[in-house]
């Protein structure tokens, strides 16, 4: 007999995990927010080129006709349909699934805390995250830096002024151990600089760090706006704690036509990468057409946060089985 049946987290950790999750629920209940529970299975799936959904099939009894279904990578699309239906601010603690991702900080199945705020601006949403971190997780100090500031501080460049080839040169100069076969587009090099150069510097800070105003090309499902200097930026933020990406927040894009365009661009990029073309979520687009209220939203990796708070080395150590 081997020991593989044993949980990957010890029982003491599982008790603490249960208490933290109960406290999170209480936090949102006290704010009068509705907890929702949307389906894990969906006919549609996100189109993001580097986000791989688990695919499965529904087979009506007595037939052999397979219908494609996908496991959610986040509860975002269903929650936005609820918002369009008039739910007001909502939250959810959901199991989400991402194919191919396995590492110290990645599991193919993990727990996401996601919430949407009708009344709050992006700044106010960051305030609310601070309130949650301080009142439940004893993380009391945070700072906010724009994407441009963080690149200026760490690499001494103006990320909105340098050319694509300068970005590539900069990455190669700071990362001498790169495989020579790596070919990336501008955003790929920027992501690599962020992961390999900037995150380790953020890890040295005692504070949690919000990074906001991302390049417009990394808008995902956020609005695009002009920053104070007139650059087109994505109205979104990421939260880093000890250099680990914990949360991703948007000032949510409301324009259905623009979202359809982004989905199509994603699928075009997928075609170029020889990846599956994903079925676009028409229900989400219709809901947005009907009217998604002005809102901000954030997805927070609960396992990673617990891992940091409970001082564990790997995400496996806070999940019952991994």
């Amino acid at each position: 007999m081997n020991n593989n049946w044993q949980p990957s987290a010890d029982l003491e950790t599982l008790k603490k995990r249960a208490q933290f999750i109960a406290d999170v629920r209480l936090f949102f209940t006290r704010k009068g927010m509705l907890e929702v529970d949307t389906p894990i299975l969906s006919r549609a799936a996100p189109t993001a080129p580097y986000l791989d959904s688990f695919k499965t099939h529904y087979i009506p009894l007595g037939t052999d006709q397979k219908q494609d279904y996908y496991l959610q990578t986040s509860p975002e699309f269903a929650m936005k349909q609820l918002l369009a239906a008039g739910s007001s601010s909502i939250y959810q603690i959901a199991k989400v699934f991402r194919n191919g991702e396995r590492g110290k900080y990645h599991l193919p199945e993990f727990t996401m805390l996601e919430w949407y705020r009708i009344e709050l601006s992006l700044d106010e949403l960051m305030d609310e995250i601070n309130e949650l971190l301080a009142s439940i997780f004893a993380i009391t100090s945070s700072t906010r830096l724009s994407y441009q500031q963080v690149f200026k501080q760490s690499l001494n460049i103006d990320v909105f002024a340098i050319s694509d080839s300068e970005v590539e040169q900069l990455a190669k100069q700071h990362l001498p151990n790169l495989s020579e076969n790596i070919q990336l587009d501008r955003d790929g090099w920027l992501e690599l600089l962020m992961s390999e150069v900037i995150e380790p510097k953020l890890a040295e800070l005692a504070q949690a760090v919000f990074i906001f105003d991302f390049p417009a090309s990394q808008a995902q499902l956020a609005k695009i706006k002009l920053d104070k200097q007139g650059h087109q930026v994505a109205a979104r933020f990421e939260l880093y704690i000890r250099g680990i990406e914990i949360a991703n927040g948007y000032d949510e894009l409301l324009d259905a036509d623009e979202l359809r365009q982004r989905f199509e661009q994603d699928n075009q990029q997928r075609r170029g990468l020889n990846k599956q073309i994903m079925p676009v979520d028409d229900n989400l687009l219709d809901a947005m057409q009907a009217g998604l209220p002005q809102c901000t939203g954030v997805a927070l990796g609960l396992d990673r946060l617990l891992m940091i708070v409970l001082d564990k080395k790997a995400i496996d150590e806070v999940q019952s089985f991994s």
Partner: protein
Amino acid sequence: MASVSTNQFKSGLKFMLDGDPCSIIENELVKPGKGQAFNRVKFRNLKTGRVNERTFKSGESVESADVVEVELEYSYTDGEFWYFMDPESYEQHAADANAIEDCKQWLKEQYVYTVTQWNGTPLLVTAPNFVNLAVTDTDPGLKGDTAGTGGKPATLETGAVVRVPLFMNIGDVLRIDTRSGEYVERAKS
């Protein structure tokens, strides 16, 4: 030559990098939420012993390295090479000074060593955790001193020098932990 993809990377996997065989020590997935994935790999160059890092794009392939570990019996040295024999096929394998550097002071004829081979050539010879070796030189033994206070240096038949209790004598056979290089006990003969 067979290739391996980054998604098969795990510690202990052997691969070729810049012409040298390497062994993965640690493989870390680097992937921002919706961004591209990379593998940050810490590895040991099996030829030089040096530890280094390399970042690959996930899905990249590298050449696998034909590296195996075999148990071979040490035979003799001619000063330039150290010869090890396969106890079943009696085949001889010659290891150079580089390969035996770490275990040179524990090499004794007819003992079995773990030999890491690349394309049939010994890269690294590792001593068993424990070896029994005779004392060839030490100060005279002090009878009655069994408390082992302080101890004294003793030269062993392989040339290694270890600290031993004062009551040990020339000709005594000692059990040595090769990982720490420390005397464990007097071997039962």
